[in-house]
């Protein structure tokens, strides 16, 4: 009797139902990370082999299919813009006044020398749209209890056919991610920290990505400001916006 009460109390304290399925967990993760639209100001610090450099940018995203980013600093990158529309990516360079479309294997190349690829930045689909999930264990990260979920892609065009994520049991945010190739080789890791509640949802404001195939100390992605469900003018997501 005492044991049952203890279990119920723990379940209540952890804020989760003991019968929760893996599918339900990643659906709740999607609720936190995905939005109708969002406007973000970010700073990306790339810790390369020769030193570190920081890029700041302002991004607009509409659902999972449209995104626009303008780089604000440093001077070498200022005015560079990227537009994602329905799986296609264009980059505008103010220095050459040219818009170049990135496609094919180039999407898997490092973006701006970071540990993220263009594909990483483009693939904003919800986890539930891409993966089947299974709970494989539990672990505590920085004192926070997590579920360990193994995600297996059920679509053929997933950037990472397998993922392992450690989901905060209370806030439904991944605190750690391991991204694998189909062969099982670990390609990238991500640590998500500084989780804040914004407009009723939890969101990791700091992410540290590490491409395991590159030398270097990883790329820090810091969300300085984020606003959800804003009124973003439609022209932002057009090729004309690149040259403006």
């Amino acid at each position, binding site marked *: 009797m005492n044991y049952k009460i203890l279990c119920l109390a723990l379940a209540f304290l952890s804020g989760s139902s003991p019968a929760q399925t893996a599918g339900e967990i990643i659906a709740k993760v999607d609720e936190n990370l995905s939005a109708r639209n969002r406007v973000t100001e970010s700073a990306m610090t790339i810790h390369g*082999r020769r030193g570190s450099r920081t890029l700041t940018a302002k991004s607009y995203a509409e659902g999972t299919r449209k995104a626009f980013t303008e780089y604000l600093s440093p001077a070498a990158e200022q005015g560079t813009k990227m537009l994602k529309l329905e799986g296609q990516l264009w980059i505008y*360079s103010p220095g*050459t006044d*040219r*818009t*170049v*479309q990135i496609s094919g294997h180039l999407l898997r190349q490092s973006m701006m020398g970071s540990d993220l690829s263009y594909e990483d930045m483009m693939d904003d689909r919800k986890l539930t749209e891409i993966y089947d999930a299974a709970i494989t264990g539990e672990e505590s990260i920085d004192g926070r209890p997590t579920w360990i979920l193994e995600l297996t892609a059920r679509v053929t065009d997933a950037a990472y056919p397998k993922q392992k994520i450690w989901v905060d049991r209370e806030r439904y945010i991944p605190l750690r991610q391991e991204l694998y190739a189909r062969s099982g080789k670990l390609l990238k890791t991500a640590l998500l920290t500084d989780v804040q509640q914004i407009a009723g949802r939890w969101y990791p404001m700091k992410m540290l990505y590490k491409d395991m195939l590159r030398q270097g100390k990883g790329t820090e992605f810091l969300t300085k400001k984020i606003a959800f469900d804003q009124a973003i003018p439609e022209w932002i997501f057009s090729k004309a916006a690149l040259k403006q």
Partner: protein
Amino acid sequence: MIRFLLKGILHDRHRSLMPIIVITTGVALTVLAHAWIQGVMGEAYTMSAHFATGHLKVMTRAYAEDQAQMPVDLALTGTGEMVEQLAAEMPEIDWAPRIRFGGLIDFPDSAGETRAQGPVAGYAIDLLSPDAREPGRFNLPQALHSGRMPRDEREALITHDFAEKFAVRPGDSFTFFGSTMEGSLAFHNFTVAGTVRFGSEVLDHGAIIIDLAAGRQTLAMQDAAGEILGFFRNGRFDRQVSQQFADRFNSGRPPGADEFAPVMITMRDQEGMAQLIDYTNAIGTIMVMIFVLAMSVVLWNTGLIGGLRRHGEFGVRLALGEEKSHIYKTLIYEALLIGLTGSVTGTLLGLGLAWYLQVVGLDIGNAMKASTMMMPSVVRTQISATDYWIGFIPGLLSMTLGNALSGIRIYKRSTARLFKELEA
């Protein structure tokens, strides 16, 4: 006596014609095989040295570990001072900073939108200095297929096959897109000055050549270069001297924690070149040796048959009172004369064929389409000093030895039984 023997050889065609034809053929093939192996290997080495390895190369330790990936982010810095220092310390070597890089070139349509694009390997080399030697190393004046050489930093050469694939002509513009030394996006507009065809499938597949200054500007590599290549001024790779230079340079820079410290390596120590050079040399030597041995056996056999065929003649000569040693000596002299004649004609024929293939070459482009090895698509023979004497080994020695061996029977013949043999 030689004139007498020569008359005998010329009058008795059974004694001379067939052996001379066999020797000529064998010697010609030996000379041609040797010149062929020398030519193919020589061209491959020269091309590798000029395009990729140099006779010596200076780069950072980190770059050296990963140089196949053309990692501009691991490039050498302070190259101006370093080249001056190298030139002062090793005046026998001509030093050439280069940037090898990868990226994408994008050809716009009339609206400036992407019309076509493809991945390229880029070479930023000194094209525009008044005394630039790099165009010669890349054989650019001869490789130019259309257009002209670049006249300023905004112009580039692209490989002809690549240009044809994307319907690009001299005068068209394109945007290079890649990564700078610090990892930023590299965008730069160029105009196609001309198209080149190197005759190597690996290079012709897709490459651009721009001036070093343009490369530095595009890739944000001021006073930096991926690698500094050193070439012996006489054009010949000297293994010992280059190793001494490399050891001297590296001794002042012991291996340590600094992955961006410069390191010098010789051509032999680059990209598996040592194994390649040793392997191909060994294979080349073995091939020539097998050929020489095979020809020696054939010619020896010719000598033996010639000696045996003249069994009756020797009997008559012995019966007439000629000394055994004299018969044996004349046999050897005759063999020497036949061998010499065959070797000379065979060497001349072999050299002629080798010269033809040296001038015209043999197109192996179709066979090399899938190859990633830096090989010319037209291979040529290379006539060297060895070709003037190598054919004499099988031609002269084996013929003489064959006859000498068969001639031993002369000494075993009994004068008392000669008439019985002759009656039979």
